[in-house]
């Protein structure tokens, strides 16, 4: 796409695995800053935005989405081999995403399922973060990622310095911004204490508890929070556990805490979520 004579710009790719496209859309949503970014980087491959394609090699490769089918598992290994600096973007890529709730299910049973034509669908039994398969050089958290964190990372990459992402919890962000604490003021269960900051404490500022979409903060005291929710606020332990069973459920220590409180909600564990519907569909297909 580019033919600049000046010093080589970093060659960038944006790749999608199992995801909603929201994180890569955050790149296009840089709006007035998008064209600056595309001047500082050579976009080699970004199929959602361009039909000019390339297989690399890449100086920087952004991966959106979790690894959830056999093709993706092969592809990420190949991509890693062609990439210098691999960045995972968003909760799907960094933690397995909401779809990782199926990791609590019995996928072997799913496999044998009477889906009208199960052989037409290839899917791994788990939805995994990219780092479970290949080494990752940097990650941006969030469902979706935060545009300011993205810009900071891009600026750092363009100049070869380390990205400066503030290391604080959502709770600390909330205090710094002078937002009213929803846990104290309204008694709303909030994961802000144990969740990595970066979003700007959106949920508390919008009157709700944090639901952990930026994932657990390193060393987060999840047990302490659960004790507080159950002992002090009187929530049922299973109810407290399901708060964690969201967009970053598979990340530790959320994962163990979910197990300790009785596992993920039923739908992710049970392999028979919609028996009557499935039966109807299977019957229809059989009849054709």
């Amino acid at each position, binding site marked *: *796409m580019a033919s600049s004579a000046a010093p080589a710009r970093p060659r960038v790719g944006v790749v*999608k*695995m*199992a995801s*909603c*496209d*929201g994180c890569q*859309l955050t790149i*296009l*949503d840089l*709006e007035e800053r*998008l*064209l600056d970014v*595309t001047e500082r980087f050579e976009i080699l491959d970004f*199929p*959602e*935005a*361009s*039909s000019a*394609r390339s297989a690399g090699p890449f100086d920087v490769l952004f991966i959106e*989405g979790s690894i959830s*089918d056999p093709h*993706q598992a092969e592809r990420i290994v190949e991509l890693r081999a062609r990439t210098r600096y691999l960045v995972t973007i968003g909760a799907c890529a960094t933690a397995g995403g*909401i*779809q990782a709730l199926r990791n609590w299910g019995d996928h072997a049973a*799913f496999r*044998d*399922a*009477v*889906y009208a*034509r199960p052989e*037409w*669908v290839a*899917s791994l039994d788990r939805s995994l973060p990219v780092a479970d398969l290949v080494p990752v050089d940097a990650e941006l958290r969030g469902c*979706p990622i935060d545009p300011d964190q993205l810009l900071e990372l891009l600026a750092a990459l363009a100049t070869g310095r380390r990205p400066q992402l503030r290391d604080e919890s959502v709770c600390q962000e909330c205090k710094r911004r002078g937002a009213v604490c929803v846990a104290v003021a309204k008694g709303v269960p909030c994961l802000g204490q144990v969740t990595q900051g970066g979003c700007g404490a*959106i*949920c508390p*500022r*919008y*009157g*709700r508890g944090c*639901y952990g*979409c930026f994932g657990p903060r390193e060393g987060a005291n999840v047990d302490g929070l659960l004790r507080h929710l159950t002992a002090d606020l009187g929530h049922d332990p299973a109810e407290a556990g*399901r708060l964690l069973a*969201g967009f970053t459920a598979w990340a530790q220590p959320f994962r163990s805490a979910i197990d300790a409180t009785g596992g993920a*909600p*039923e*739908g*992710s564990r049970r*392999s*028979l*979520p*919609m*028996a009557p*519907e*499935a*039966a109807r569909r*299977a019957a*229809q*297909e059989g009849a054709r």
Partner: protein
Amino acid sequence: MTERPTPTPAPVPEDRTYAVGELTRVEGEGSLHLVVRGGEIVEARLGIFEAPRYFEALVVDRTPDEVIDIVARICGICPVAYQMSAVHAFEDLFGVAIDPSVRALRRLLYCGEWIESHALHIWLLHAPDFLGYPSAIAMAADHRERVEAALRAKKAGNDLLRLLGGRPIHPVSVRVGGWSRAPRRSELLALRPALADGLAIAQETTRFVASLPMPAFAREPRLVSLRHPDEYPFNHGRIVSSDGIDIPMADWRSIFEEHQVEGSNALHARTLDGKGAYLLGPAARVTLTGGTLHPLAREALDQSGFAELIRTNIYASIVARGVELIHAYAEALDLIDAYVPPSVPLAAWEPRAGVAAWATEAPRGLLFHRYVVDDRGRIREAQIVPPTSQNQAAIEADLVVAAREVLALPHAEATHRLEQMIRSYDPCISCATHFLDLTIDRA
């Protein structure tokens, strides 16, 4: 990675395969496959290989408010649509009376999403086809002002979403009963100048896209959308069609059904009457309920001279999208001017067992949700039918028609033209993939 065949000489081919291994500038992962034998089209397929994420299973046992957060993640481009179909389904079942300003704010939120989605599609995904560029980024080299204006106009929509929901993608404030936080009047008024600028850009955009040469194409599809007597359809109305369907939205299953098709990780939808394919989205809405367009949008449609062509030439959907973009800015401005903060931003509600079913108009068309809810308000069963899976049969029918038009072209050009046609639907493949509900039934 795209398997673009190299050009071959032009005589009409007897046997030929057109294949695009991975469609670009669409949302999600899909492929195109068309087989010609003896000059006859024997196979036309939009393959969807996007990995399934099993949303219909993930929402089981969840609360209604959790469902609103979860289903948003089906699609990063139209999360509000998923939130809107879900929230209205639950409020309808639970009998929650929402504040009139809450209703208005939800229309405003939808305006923000239509702006973001339509502007993205027109400028970043679709216009490059008409102007001969691989991307809007490449287009900016020659049309910098246009691309900058488009990005500015899109930003106005995203800023509106950000104000109402905390962030443009997966906003957080939509709750059963209303809003976790309703905006102040002053905050909305601050967005007015950018939206007015966006409106002017959308008007210019629509004139511009209406001046582009449209590839020849003619097929009169069966059109389906919501229709409401007093407003352009977002969250309310009845399901109507170009051939006389007129049913309450909750009765979607009395007319339509889903089925699985090989080579696709999405279930297709079709009508039970055996007529098969139908088309949703801007072309359907503009045609079926053009009378409720904002006067400024109506005026643009009339001036474009495309009102008829939009119905039969899918490439012209870019004009329909432009007209709806104007509508979204114009209505957003009107809603802001009339805004009074809700006296009850978040109404209290009690769960009730039953079936919650609702449809709203996502940017790409009718989005139907149906949940079986127990007496604690937990989901027992879910069905989510996004527009792209409903459009898939129409896309494949159109591929057959379009293929006849392009058979004489050099192979690469023909393939490109078919890809452009598929982009005309603004297919959202991430959306289409989630219904893969792996379920066990050993009976």
